[in-house]
């Protein structure tokens, strides 16, 4: 039975093989795409539009009436005399501080680590695996662990600093700017390996001959880095920079777990504010408007960064 079906199936399709090779059969393509597109439409495309719609309403998840208020949610966030102005812009400031200090470190340190590992030496893969390991732990594990290590009284960090003759009672989590040092430092510890792995892959794609040619021309280590490594790494650098900016601007878990936004609300980031406003106090209209303002700020930052890098490229050539 099976053999007969097999042979009958083979014969006609073998004859029809040439036209079939083009495979312009549209219905099948859409069938393959359908499961993905349903999820994509409902949980990615629809929310983008729906979020805008929510932001134009006084939208409380728990109340039946959701009156249309036009741009009121936006004007309230932009009006210095409104009650939501200070908390929102305070949180935007916190996100700004965190991004400003974490992004350069998250570029320079992983790049340094990647350069140190961009040669064959025994143990290289082991080191790479170790530096990447914290990244596979979630932010909750990392946050709970470091809150313990950074505890002002019983924490290991202050203890080790004390034995080294350094200050041993730093309030890492309850005072500013110490809390920023802690949040940035822990984030570097957590995600250094991720950026380093991407840099390392990028470094391996820079052609060896370019280094050799530079060496023949008498270029020193710094000059080779400046004129061979950096230009060769530019696309990867841009990608890592963009991804890191987006990730830092979306910082939430570290301050949720380690500082709970304290002292005061100094380390409460914009996402923290949006989540609290929208998903805890259910002022979803205002929270949706706030997330659009944050997104616009982020897009503006990206454009500026992109432009800055373009400029330098032009002036160098």
């Amino acid at each position: 039975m099976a053999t007969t079906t097999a042979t009958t199936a083979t014969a006609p399709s073998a004859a029809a093989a040439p036209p079939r090779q083009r495979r312009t059969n549209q219905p099948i393509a859409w069938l393959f795409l359908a499961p993905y597109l349903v999820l994509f439409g409902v949980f990615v495309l629809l929310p983008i539009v729906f979020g805008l719609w929510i932001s134009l309403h006084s939208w409380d998840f728990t109340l039946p009436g959701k009156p249309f208020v036009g741009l009121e949610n936006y004007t309230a966030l932009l009006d210095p005399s409104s009650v939501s102005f200070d908390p929102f812009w305070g949180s935007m400031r916190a996100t700004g501080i965190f991004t400003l200090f974490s992004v350069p470190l998250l570029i320079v340190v992983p790049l340094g680590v990647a350069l140190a590992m961009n040669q064959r030496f025994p143990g290289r893969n082991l080191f790479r695996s170790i530096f990447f390991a914290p990244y596979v732990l979630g932010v909750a594990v990392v946050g709970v662990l470091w809150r313990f290590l950074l505890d002002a009284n019983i924490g290991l960090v202050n203890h080790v600093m004390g034995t080294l003759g350094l200050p041993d009672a730093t309030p890492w989590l309850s005072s500013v700017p110490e809390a920023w040092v802690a949040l940035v430092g822990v984030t570097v510890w957590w995600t250094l390996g991720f950026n380093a792995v991407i840099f390392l892959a990028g470094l391996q794609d820079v052609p060896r001959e370019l280094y050799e040619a530079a060496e023949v021309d008498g270029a020193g280590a710094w000059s080779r880095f400046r004129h061979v490594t950096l230009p060769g790494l530019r696309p990867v650098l841009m990608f890592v920079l963009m991804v890191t900016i987006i990730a830092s601007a979306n910082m939430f878990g570290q301050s949720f777990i380690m500082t709970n936004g304290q002292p005061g609300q100094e380390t409460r980031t914009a996402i923290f504010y949006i989540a609290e406003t929208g998903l805890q106090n259910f002022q979803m209209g205002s929270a949706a408007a706030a997330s659009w303002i944050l997104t616009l700020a982020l897009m503006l930052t990206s454009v500026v960064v992109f432009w800055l890098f373009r400029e330098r490229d032009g002036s160098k050539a």
Partner: protein
Amino acid sequence: MKALRYATLGLLTLLFVSPLLFMISTSFKTRVESSRTPPTLFPEEPTLQAYAHILTAADTPVFRWFLNSMFAATANAVLVVATAALAAYALARMEFRGRKVVFGLIVATLFVPPVILVIPNYEIVGRLFWLDTLTAVIVPTAANAFGVFFLRQFFIGLPKELEESAYLDGANTWQVFAKVVLPLSRPALATLALLAFLTNWNDFLWPVYVLFSPEMQTLQAGLSTLQSANNVRYDLLMAGAVIASVPVLILYAFAQRFVIEGVSRSGLKG
């Protein structure tokens, strides 16, 4: 030069490994010893008290959270790989009107900051009656744009001849996909599945807000509950953190090549 490199890398290794070792060590300490100053490096009287306590406490059912996380992350990974593989194959090998638009739209969302989706997706998930269920942490993140992008690149790189000869042997599109393309793509599928599993296992903000019942938490969201319930019981918190990290660390130890490969490729092709 060589010594300098090993010294630097060795110091970094200490900085990366010692916090994790101290976490494990503390989880086997007694309540008193866990917050003693100066801290002991190794437990003086090793005990399983902390584990026994958190695994049996009714308001923090850590074992249940473990099962929840396992189930959610596995289901999410399966869903991500299945939907992305189908879509990526259509985009890699089939010609149809609108292909460029669909692909462009998917790639464009790679650059949409996730914050924009949080509030509306909460509302959507609420209307689907998924709040406080694991479905809420499994389904909405399953449309993985990176996955489509990544697998499409991989499929395009496969030699076409194998598929052509399968067609000549009378296979239909589905058979070619399932019996020729998928088996050839095992490394790429495994990489994507691992990345999806890890991302879902470690997701934090979303489960913190969409799951409320104690028995519905994932491990990551549960850890913050554990923290607010036992503010300075570091023995309990470290035991919870160990339970949340051991599965992913084991997975990582066995499959780190795939994980690192996947991450490095995200940079080169992004």
